[in-house]
């Protein structure tokens, strides 16, 4: 079975979970999970949204301290009370949600909680900045270590966070969806680093919904379903279809995200929203784009190509430096997101914490965008709940009910709530940034179905993504952005993944 471990003859695992269960206020998240991680192994972890991947890993990393069952590190029983204790025992985790400090510099984030001191016992800034630059450079990034974290694009922040854990010297490294915001070349560099770390005899757990990535990088793959571990197999003996059927508990539904697409741009459809040569003074330069009723326009580009800024500018969050927006043929400039919403614009950002209220119930998260439609002055919680209930059923959001805190949902299900808030009253223009990021196969399918349904009801949709599959599956037209300028437009005919990658 396990090639590395056998060659060394029955080594004890680096990490072992034995019959671990965890429930949240009576709701079972994982049950009776057995799991082993060996030294020199990259262990892939897959499963649908809400399967219990993050929960299991948070137990290992000391985030959740009350659970049942036993955990061993190198054969020794342990029970971490905090993430700090786990870190001290050599376990580092990069969480699914970014947990960087936006106000600190890049270098400070890399060395968070472990600043090296110089011989005077003070923080050695020169060393920190220099080292941080070197470490980040090994992930292929050239950024100023003194830049403020919050000012960087999400993908870069993700890389910085990765570098913090990768180079912390931890012996057990847990990566919860580390590649969700990375472009293909960045993923490749990350994998090179992971292979080096593995060669050092450390152990890595790699969670991802990108099954191809998991197949490429892991030695062993464990599948979770509904809070249970259903299988652990060496990668060599697995196919993608095996994994999918293990994940969903039935045969593969034959659903594969697009490798190519037939575009169906139709110039007869009326233009609803238009960007004319817009610049934001930083990332975007002279970008023009037309959104038509009943069409999905995809914007593809690597991280940092200006998609994020484009989406924010269109929703009134950042202001234009040059150029203008047109809505129904009239020039328009939104002074605030509230004004944009009033004009029928809707936006789901790529980072769900930007869009959601973790400690509020689901129904308040959904209704916040439509309160003004429900009633002018007084609240009607009954209506809010029933609207939310409809969305929970439609989107198959996995939860106990409308009054559960949003934070109790798994990452992918939170993403669905973020979309749900714009579905009650159809917007005229819907802007979706990375709409399928962090979603499992089934959930992606749901989202694709919903977005296409909205298109067919006449909404003009803009989808921005750095995943070519997402663009190819959804878009009727594609605009490729490169470094803030429009590099190429595809309006009709068949295009392939390679066309997008080479244009970007």
């Amino acid at each position: 079975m396990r090639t590395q471990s056998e060659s060394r003859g029955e080594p004890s695992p680096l990490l072992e979970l034995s019959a671990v269960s965890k429930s949240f206020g009576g709701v079972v998240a994982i049950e009776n999970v057995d799991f082993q991680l060996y030294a020199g192994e990259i262990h892939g972890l897959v499963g649908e949204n809400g399967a219990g991947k993050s929960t299991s890993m948070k137990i290992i990393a000391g985030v959740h301290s009350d659970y049942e069952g036993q955990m061993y590190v190198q054969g020794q029983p342990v029970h971490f009370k905090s993430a700090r204790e786990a870190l001290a025992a050599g376990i580092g985790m990069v969480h699914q949600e970014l947990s960087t400090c936006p106000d600190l510099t890049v270098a400070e984030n890399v060395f968070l909680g472990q600043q090296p001191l110089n011989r005077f016992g003070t923080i050695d800034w020169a060393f920190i900045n220099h080292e941080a630059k070197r470490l980040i450079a090994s992930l292929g990034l050239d950024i100023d270590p003194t830049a403020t974290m919050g000012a960087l694009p999400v993908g870069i922040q993700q890389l910085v966070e990765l570098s913090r854990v990768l180079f912390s010297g931890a012996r057990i490294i847990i990566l919860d969806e580390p590649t969700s915001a990375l472009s293909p070349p960045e993923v490749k560099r990350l994998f090179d680093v992971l292979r080096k770390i593995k060669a050092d005899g450390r152990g890595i757990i790699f969670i991802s919904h990108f099954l191809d990535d998991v197949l490429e990088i892991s030695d062993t793959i464990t599948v979770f379903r509904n809070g249970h571990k259903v299988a652990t197999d060496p990668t060599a003996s697995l196919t993608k279809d095996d994994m999918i059927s293990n994940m969903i508990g039935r045969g593969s539904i034959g659903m594969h995200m697009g490798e190519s697409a037939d575009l169906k741009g139709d110039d007869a459809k009326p233009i609803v929203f238009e960007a004319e040569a817009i610049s934001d003074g930083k990332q975007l330069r002279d970008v023009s784009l037309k959104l038509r009723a009943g069409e999905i326009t995809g914007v593809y580009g690597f991280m940092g190509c200006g998609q994020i800024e484009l989406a924010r500018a269109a929703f009134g969050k950042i202001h234009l430096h040059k150029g203008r927006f047109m809505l129904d043929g009239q020039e328009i400039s939104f002074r605030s997101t509230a004004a944009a919403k009033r004009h029928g614009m809707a936006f789901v950002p790529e980072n769900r914490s930007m869009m959601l209220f973790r400690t509020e119930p689901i129904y308040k998260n959904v209704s916040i965008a439509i309160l003004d439609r429900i009633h002018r002055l007084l609240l009607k919680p009954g209506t809010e709940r029933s609207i939310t209930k409809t969305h929970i059923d439609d989107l198959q959001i996995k939860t106990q009910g409308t009054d559960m805190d949003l934070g109790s949902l798994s990452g992918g299900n939170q993403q669905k709530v973020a979309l749900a808030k714009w579905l009650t009253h159809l917007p005229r223009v819907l802007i979706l940034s990375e709409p399928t990021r962090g979603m499992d196969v089934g959930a992606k399918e749901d989202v694709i179905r919903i977005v296409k349904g909205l298109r067919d009801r006449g909404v003009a949709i803009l989808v921005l993504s750095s995943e070519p599959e997402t663009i190819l599956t959804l878009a009727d037209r594609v605009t490729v952005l490169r470094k803030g300028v429009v590099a190429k437009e595809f309006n009709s005919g068949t295009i392939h993944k390679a066309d997008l990658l080479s244009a970007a």
Partner: protein
Amino acid sequence: MTTPTPVVAGKLKSVLTDQLRNIAPVFTLLALVTFFSVAAPSFLTVDNFMNIMAQVSIIAIIAVGLTFVILTAEIDLSVAAIANAIGITVAYFTVQPDYVNIANLPMPGVIAIVLTVLAAFAFGLVTAFGVTWVGIPSFIMTLAMMQIANGVSALLVRGQIAYKFPDLVTTLGAGDLFGVRWTIIVAVLFLAVGYFVLKYTRYGRYVYMTGGNREAAEYSGVNVKFIIGSVMVICAVCTGIAGMLSVAYYGSAQQNQFDTYLLDAIAAVVVGGTSLFGGRGGIPNTIIGLLVLGVLNNGLDHVQIDSFLKILIRGLILLAALTINVYAQRLKENN
């Protein structure tokens, strides 16, 4: 499946963590009441209860406004200074006795009151402008406003003391209705309206959501600048009205009269369990906080304690409340 016992225990635990910020202040209040009732027979009487109510009533009006502000995760440090300035303003618009040497601008009572309320509104607008348009953190902006309001007070009274106020203000501040002080009635009214607005209106929901996650509120199309600006104005107006009643209550208006109001008002809101990080808490919390504060201040007068020690005790209680406040937040987030 897990056995039923841990499930029930788990539920209970999660409810407790959820409610810690609401439960802890109630226990504090009960503990204080029990302690003082045992320690001093004069404490637990109807008369003394009305006393406590009267003592906290003016702070209560300020605390209503401050609850709005703190719920949005902002702060207003100018409340005491604005209460002071507005109290002085209403005196400035009133005929003073001959021996008061102030170059004032007397008006008919109603107009004086309207102008004064407008002045409070104007203070609020300036704060709102600074915080939302200019983007000055409220902590700094309201420090500046504190100084500005003190400056206005100084210019208006020039070291003198004013003694006359419009009749309506005098009645509401110093009079009573069937033996119940008007300030109590006004405070209850403000608390009730504040509760209603926060709990049952769309605006109230926006206040909570803006405090809970400002960015998310903005991306959901909430006009967060308007919300934050408006809570600053609401706070200034509440504070101004409290200031008017307060000068009438004391029968005089002078510089630096209400300096203790700032700490008291913030303490009432925070001790009650409203989160300093925004989005959690509300008027019921503030009511409990006010009672804790009132019982503590009043009770310490009933037991024989060194009056200097009292100051320290109040500080310690505040520290304990703040600790619980922050701790409750952390529990909630880690859950």
